């Protein structure tokens, strides 16, 4: 929260409320509804909550059912308190800036509890999907959710054609070879080249990467400008950083590879390659 104090002058300038977003969150951002909700209750801050199956992994919010006023926060509760968690999207009135000093501050631990006690903090429930995509595994899950929402709202943006299965997003500048089967749940970035006979499922392939022929990828993130060789098998949340080269005929199972590495040996069990 400290950085908000840095931007104090800019934020307070016009006296209007301002949004604050955690960047490692993906959802169908309900900006208009959140702004309306905030004006209606007139409190100092509003945050978006979402329902999850395992709330103990997150910060849990307890609030009044009819008004949405937040009573208290419990961080990573050990017994079940509520299944609504802080989704990391906020809107604040400029008055909040008086609570925040220019020092490292956790908004959840230091600012919100005080606001909740004073009855100044309200929660709006999120509609649609939500995912914290800070970990590669969750990033891929979030990607699947996003593509599913895209299918419902803008199906024309998804890729279709022979060899395309399910929800697939392909940049117009990418090239896909013959006899490939791509999808479900694949995103392919700009300038990517996928050679013949490649099978890709549940992956993100970033800009400029090349996947050589006959390889098989499932649940992977292929970084910018990577080169994946022929007959390579990658699975189980293998993540390749920028400019990684994977030699032909290797097997990568859960490998996390730091940028600019060359991989010349298979990685049969998950590990980090520095």
């Amino acid at each position, binding site marked *: 929260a400290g950085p908000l104090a840095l931007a104090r002058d800019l934020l307070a300038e016009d006296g209007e409320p301002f949004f604050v977003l955690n960047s490692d969150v993906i959802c169908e951002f309900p900006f208009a509804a959140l702004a309306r909700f905030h004006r209606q209750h007139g409190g100092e801050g509003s945050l978006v909550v979402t329902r999850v199956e395992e709330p103990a992994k997150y910060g849990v919010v307890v609030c009044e059912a009819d008004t949405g006023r937040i009573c208290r926060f419990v961080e990573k509760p050990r017994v079940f308190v509520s299944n609504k968690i802080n989704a990391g999207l906020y809107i604040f009135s400029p008055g909040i800036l008086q609570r925040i000093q220019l020092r490292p501050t956790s908004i959840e631990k230091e600012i919100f509890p005080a606001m909740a006690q004073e009855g100044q903090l309200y929660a709006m429930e999120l509609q649609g999907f939500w995912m914290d995509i800070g970990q590669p595994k969750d990033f891929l899950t979030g990607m699947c959710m996003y593509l599913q929402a895209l299918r419902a709202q803008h199906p024309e943006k998804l890729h279709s054609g022979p060899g395309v299965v399910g929800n697939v997003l392909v940049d117009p500048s990418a090239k896909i070879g013959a006899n490939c089967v791509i999808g479900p749940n694949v995103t392919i970035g700009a300038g990517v080249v996928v050679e013949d006979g490649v099978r890709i499922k549940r992956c993100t392939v970033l800009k400029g990467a090349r996947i050589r*022929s006959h390889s098989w990828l499932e649940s992977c993130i292929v970084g910018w400008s990577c080169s994946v060789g022929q007959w390579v*098998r990658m699975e189980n949340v293998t993540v390749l950083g920028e400019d990684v080269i994977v030699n032909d005929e290797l*097997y990568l199972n859960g490998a996390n590879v730091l940028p600019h590495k060359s991989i010349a040996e298979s990685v049969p069990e998950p590990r980090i390659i520095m």
Partner: protein
Amino acid sequence: LKAVILIGGPQKGTRFRPLSFEVPKPLFPVAGVPMVQHHIEACAKVPGMKEILLMGFYQPHEALSRFLVSAQQEFKIPIRYLQEYAALGTGGGIYHFRDQILSGGTEAFFVLNADVCSEFPLQEMLEFRQQHGDAHSFVILGTTANRTQALNYGCIVANADTQEVQHYVEKPSTFVSEIINCGIYLFTPAIFQHIGDVFQRNQQELVLEESSNGWQRAEVIRLEQDVFTALAGSGKLYVYKTDGFWSQIKSAGSAIYASRLYLNQYSKTHPERLAQNKSGGPIIRGNVYIHPTASIYSTAVLGPNVSIGEGVTVGAGVRVRESIVLHGASLHDHTCVLNTIVGWDSTIGRWARVEGTPSDPNPNDPYAKIDSETLFRDGRLTPSITILGCSVTIPAEVVILNSIVLPHKELSRSYKNQIIL
């Protein structure tokens, strides 16, 4: 001049399972032809060879009979199978059938173990005996191993000038010699006298003990422990040392290694058996054997060290390396098969990866031999060649790593480091 090839029986060669469930181990194809055909070809080439006898305790078997018929036709030499009534050991069998071996006035005969892979320097052994011994000397073919691995074999200590064997120990626990027994011998009829002595000794010992298996045990004679150990230092036994390639074939992994050795030899002895790159055909790297009836897409990449059997189909964009694909098997598009033996009539689905771990000897040590590794170490399956038994089905897009799949299994998911019953 005759040759006896010891082919063992079903109780022997258990390390070769599950492959030995389908076909007797001596008939398993190595570099495209049955293991024992390499022996027969080498024997048939020796001038003066009158007859080849296969000896073992397999029951009469259709595959074996058919093989004998076709081998006789191809090599134009009488070949017979002598069936031992029980497992009589490496010496007991030839002793039991000594009349057959000696019939027709045999002056000398070779004895070869079927489960070795070798250059078979038989002519050289004959010449060596003329130079170093006399008409009554026996010769063991020896080769050099490294100090640690030599303990797994029969060790030979020989006089540096005369090559006479002074001492012989089978699988010692401490270092004795780096020269090891290759399992290929040259004998004269006099050997039966020495084997007979062992037989007499066995019988006498049994009279002293009380045992219900007495009659069978006396006839079980091991050439190595019982005969060579006694003959060492007597001036009758010599060793001919070879630098040519040699390996035991005990496990499936060693079959792939032996294939590589024989495929290498083909460039000199059978260049027609090595596949060549040609337009419309698959891409060939290194030494590859492809049976004429196999059908292979031109975008497949095969080799090095690959044998493709009869009627095999290999789809588009398939990669096969260091593997044996047995007859009738089918590899679908984009599969990757490495360090694997694919069993008869098996199927591997699209994009599947079937991979084993090679157990090759250390390439930096010229005398290193392939390890006869144990199946388990520290409670876990040792990474080794992946073996698919006969009629196994591997579904599309899975990975099978370091696993052994027993015959007729239809898998439904990936497996690693497992034996699948």
